[in-house]
Each structure stands twice: as C-alpha cells, then as structure tokens.
C-alpha cells in the first residue's frame, strides 16, 4: 500500500537561504513521525509546504499514492491535512468557536453564520479534549496557553483530518497539559491518522513517535525507527549532521 504522504525531493529557498534542500520524507496511516533538529534546521518550513503555507520551489507531494498540488492552505484542507502551527494561528479577538470554524463556518439555511450551532459543536468537542475548558464566550486572547492550544487542536480534530501536522505543540504548555497532548496523539494514532510531530524534547519524541527524522541546515540527515536508535544516536545526528546507522 502506498504511504499516506510522500514528500519527494522538496526544496525551497528564501532569498539566499536554502531553507529546505532536496528533502524526502514519508508518513503512513497510524504512524507518528517526529521531526528533530536545531532551530533554523528547516522543520517548520518543510511542514509548511505540506500545509500550503509556503509553495515549494521544486519537488513533489504524493498523498495516498496520488500526486497532488498544494498551493494554498485550502488545498491542504481539501486533502484532509490539518496543521497546528508553532505560533498558534488563532485570531485573538475572536472566541473559541469562531476560531475553531474559521474559514469553514457553519451557516444556516439563509447563508448566515450560525454562532449558536458552532458554539454547541465547540462545547461538544471541548468536553472531549479538555473538559476544563469553560471560556467559550471570551476572545481567545483571554485564554491560557494550554486553553489556546486546545482550541488549535480542536480545530484540527473536528474536521476529521487524515494527516495531522503538529509544530511544537507542547512548547508553551505545562506538565499536565503536555501529558494531555501526548494522550491525544496516542488516541488519534489509534484512529489511523498520520501525524508529523515537531518537538525539541528528544525523550518525549522517543516515546510518542514510530520514526524520527533529523534535519540540519535544510537537509535530511536521516530517518530511523525509534527501536533502532538510542537517544544518543539521535543527539549526535542533530549535532553532527551524520547518521551513525547509515555509516555502520
């Protein structure tokens, strides 16, 4: 069976900076693939080409064995790709429901946005994801980091993503909320989603991921199954930019 996602030889440059240089990576259903690397390695840029935020200079994206064009966030959504961005892509002045449905508002028979129905749906999904979430009427600027993160996650989950991209989803969270995100990742994985996860916490990645891929200076150092490597192997890949497995 063809992988869920295959990015083949993708590259993108900003001015003189080759942010992503001829990278290939794949993702299977029910698999969590971790992306590791120093700041500026190109992780966010790589996944932004999949989420439609950036247009790649060259390369191909294949989904379920079909080549697709992803030129905008809309194209990505049409391919059931949902993204939780590193800098939370929320409109601070709007409430949780408006953010959750942003760009995909529920409307009534007359074509007007149906705030009451969106609020009801938001209550339902929040009851599942974060039962402590109560501030439905307030602008999300009034929420804590964890609550904001649940809005971003709810948005991805609600629309039945097949492919989920999470760019440092736990960076701004406390211990308890981080554990909740980890639990959620396990649950979504069971449901058969493919997940790209970016994080700096190598130990966390070893626990959550099936495979980890390491990037450095825009290039792919290597992707290995977590059973096959130690934490030290990964650290040396991150720092040295060489794959000890490939050398062996």
């Amino acid at each position, binding site marked *: 069976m063809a992988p869920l996602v295959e990015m083949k030889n993708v590259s993108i440059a900003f001015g003189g900076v080759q942010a992503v240089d001829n990278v290939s990576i794949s993702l299977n259903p029910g698999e969590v693939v971790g992306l590791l690397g120093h700041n500026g390695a190109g992780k966010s840029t790589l996944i932004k080409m999949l*989420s439609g935020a950036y247009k790649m200079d060259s390369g191909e994206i294949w989904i379920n064995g079909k080549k697709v064009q992803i030129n905008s966030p809309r194209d990505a959504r049409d391919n059931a790709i949902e993204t939780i961005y590193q800098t939370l*892509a929320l*409109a601070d*002045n*709007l409430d949780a429901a408006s953010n959750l449905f*942003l760009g995909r508002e529920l409307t009534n028979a007359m074509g*007007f*946005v149906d705030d009451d129905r969106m*609020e009801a749906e938001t209550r339902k999904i929040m009851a599942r994801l974060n039962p402590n979430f109560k501030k439905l009427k307030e602008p999300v600027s009034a929420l804590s980091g964890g609550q904001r993160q649940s809005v971003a996650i709810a948005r991805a989950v609600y629309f039945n993503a097949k492919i989920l991209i999470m760019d440092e989803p736990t960076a701004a969270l406390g211990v308890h909320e981080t554990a909740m995100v980890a639990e959620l990742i396990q649950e979504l994985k069971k449901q058969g989603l493919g997940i790209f996860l970016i994080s700096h916490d190598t130990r966390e990645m070893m626990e959550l991921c099936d495979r980890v891929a390491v990037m450095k200076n825009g290039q792919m150092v290597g992707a290995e199954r977590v059973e096959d490597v130690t934490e030290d192997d990964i650290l040396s890949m991150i720092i040295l930019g060489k794959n000890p497995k490939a050398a062996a």
Partner: protein
Amino acid sequence: MSDQTKIPPKRSFVQTLELDMRLLGMIAAFIIVAVAFNILTGGRFLTPRNIFNLTIQTASVGIMATGMVFVIVTRHIDLSVGAILAACSALMAMTQVRWLPEFLEIGHWAIPWIAIMVGVALGALIGAFNGWLIGYQGIPAFIVTLGGFLIWRNVGWYQTAGQTIGPLDQTFMTFGGINGTLGGPLSWALGLAAIAFVLFAIFKSRHTKATHGFSVKPMWAELTIAGIAVAAIAGFIGVLTNYAVPERVVARDPSRYGCDVAEGCNAVYGLPISVLLLIGIAAVMTVIARRTRFGRYIFATGGNPDAAELSGINTRMLTVKIFALMGALCAIAAVVASARLANHSNDLGTLDELRVIAAAVIGGTALSGGIGTIYGAILGALIMQSLQSGMAMVGVDAPLQNIVVGAVLVFAVFIDIQYRKRVGAK
C-alpha cells in the same frame, strides 16, 4: 456539563444584562454633551427641530463611518472618502442635470435612479481599485488613499469644470433631509415595525440559546433590555414627529401634507429619508459584521492576518471587497450630502475623511485592528456632530470649535485605551 449546574457567581446588574460597557460609556457621553448644550443654549438644543437637524447632519458622515469600521478593523485606513464622495457627487449631478435630460425630459422618473446607480458604481470601482493596489500590490493603504485624497476631488472638478451643478432632480433631493420626510403616520408605522422586530429578535435568540442548552439571561434582564429598546425607538419617533411643518411651508403645497388648506393642517416632518437610509445601512452593515462569513473574515484578518491566511481566507480579495464597499458607501453619502444642499459643489465633503475616521475611532474602533462596532461608529458621528452644532449654537468661535473636536478625539482614544487596560483586553 458542570458549568451550568454550578451556582453562578454573583454578578453585577450590568453584567447580568450582558450590556456592552463601551456602548454604555458612549451613550453616557452623548447624554452629557446633549444636556450640557441644552443648558448652555437655554433649552434650544434638545428641541424636536434641533434633534431633527442633528440627525440629518449626521447621516452622510454616519453612512461612511460604517464602512470605515471595516477598513480600520482590518488595520487599514481610508483618507480618500471625502474626495470619493466629491467625485461621485459630481458624476451624479452631471448625469441628472446635464446628460440624461438630453434623452429624457426633465423630471423623468428614471433620472435620479440612473444617476444614483452610476454614482454607486463609480464609488465601488474607485474603492475596488484602491483595494487592489493595497491588497495585491502591497502599497500601504495610507499612501494609496492619500493619493486618492488628492486625485478624486479634482477628477470631480474636471467633470464639472469647477462649476456648481444644480438644481438637482426633485426625487433625488428627497434623500437630503428636510425635503424628504415620512410624516407622522408612516414614521409611527415604521417605528412600530421596528419595535416588533426588536422584540421578535430578542426572544427568538433566547429561544435558540435555550434549545442549544446554553444558559440564558434571567427573564427580568431580557425584559429590561426589551423595555429600553422599545422606549428608545418610541422616543426617537416621538421627537421627530413633534417637529411641525411651519404653516407657510404647508401653504406652498397643502396636498403634499394631506390637507386642503394650510390652516389647522398640523403636518409634522417625522423621520427623514436620509436618516432612514442611515439606519437601514447600519442594520445591513451590522448583519454583515456579525452574521456573514465576509464579516467574520474581516474581524479575523484584523485580529491576526497570518491566522486568517492560514485558515484559507483570501485576505487580498477581502481587502478589495472592503474598499469597494467603502467606495459604494461614499457614493450613497454623496447622494445624501448633495441632496441636502440641493446642488453639487466641488467642496462637498471637504474634511469628511477626518470626521469619518474620528467617528469610527470615537466609537471604539481600534486602529490596531480586530475591534470595532457599527453602532459605535454612528454614535461617534452623532457625538461629533452634536459637539459641532452645539458649539455653533452657543456661539463658540470656529477655531475653538476645531480645537475642542480635536481634543475630544484624542481624549476618547485615551479613555478607550485605559478601559481596555483595565479589562485586560488587547
């Protein structure tokens, strides 16, 4: 869901009513201004006649201010609204006074409507062009519309060769204010319809919330709000229908007021069509802001342009639409402004860009984007107009009038910033 079964924390009167504090503040400011001038003028400020005049003087700026809310909410500005108004007014005046009468006899029913359509099309086109330069070419709105400020009024000048064009069509002039009012019965009919609609809307919303299982306000709070709304509408209509048409005016054409002779006719002006237009536009713009995707995207883009873009919103096209709407509203304001004066002159709407921006900002629209209301902008326009008319009635020198209006603008924003700091909003 535990939040509904828990005993709610004790809430203040205003919180229970779920009223907007900023709205209350503005209404309070307006009442203070009105009462102060009424005392200073020995009771001449709050007469039906003066209130009538205030409303028709506010209409043109108020109409444009509703569009400016959307512009400013998306972090842009439009300095060219007064100039667009002048260009549209010039085109509409030329169309109805010079060009159309060559094909249709003077006074033909179609003339004013063709003129208005042409004017609104021009306004929307200029606005769309501005929006394209801003959204697609990345030129800052400040620069594009500063250029427009210099360009469009003078394009209007070339259309009319700098002449004053008039008199305008009779029907067209009914949009100006005193020449087009609904009279007593029709004003009350509309007022009652508005009351019925408000009551229906309040209780429909309550019902919908209840069916979704959301907590609703206590019944007494709902009734209080409804009572205030009914009183406000009835009071407004009551005042306007107390402004009697002078007998010598009725004598010119008694049949127009439903009388045979002027004596004992007791005709009243009632709601001006221009004010009805403003109210209608405000209602439509409020629905756009709150209940349409277009409105939702305006506020989302203002709050976080990147988030809007990543959510699949075409923010460039959105900019074009917002400025096109602004331009169309300038044209409608041009109808009202030129009809009020019975002719087009090239200085029509001079400095309106500043009045319109000030109205929106006094009304709580934040230049940092994402925040603003239509009713706020109209209240802002009303407060500005009250200050200006009131000072003129009291006999304040023109230079001092400007100083006061300028100071009020800055002070209003200062208060707004303090308020937002206190409630912890952005």
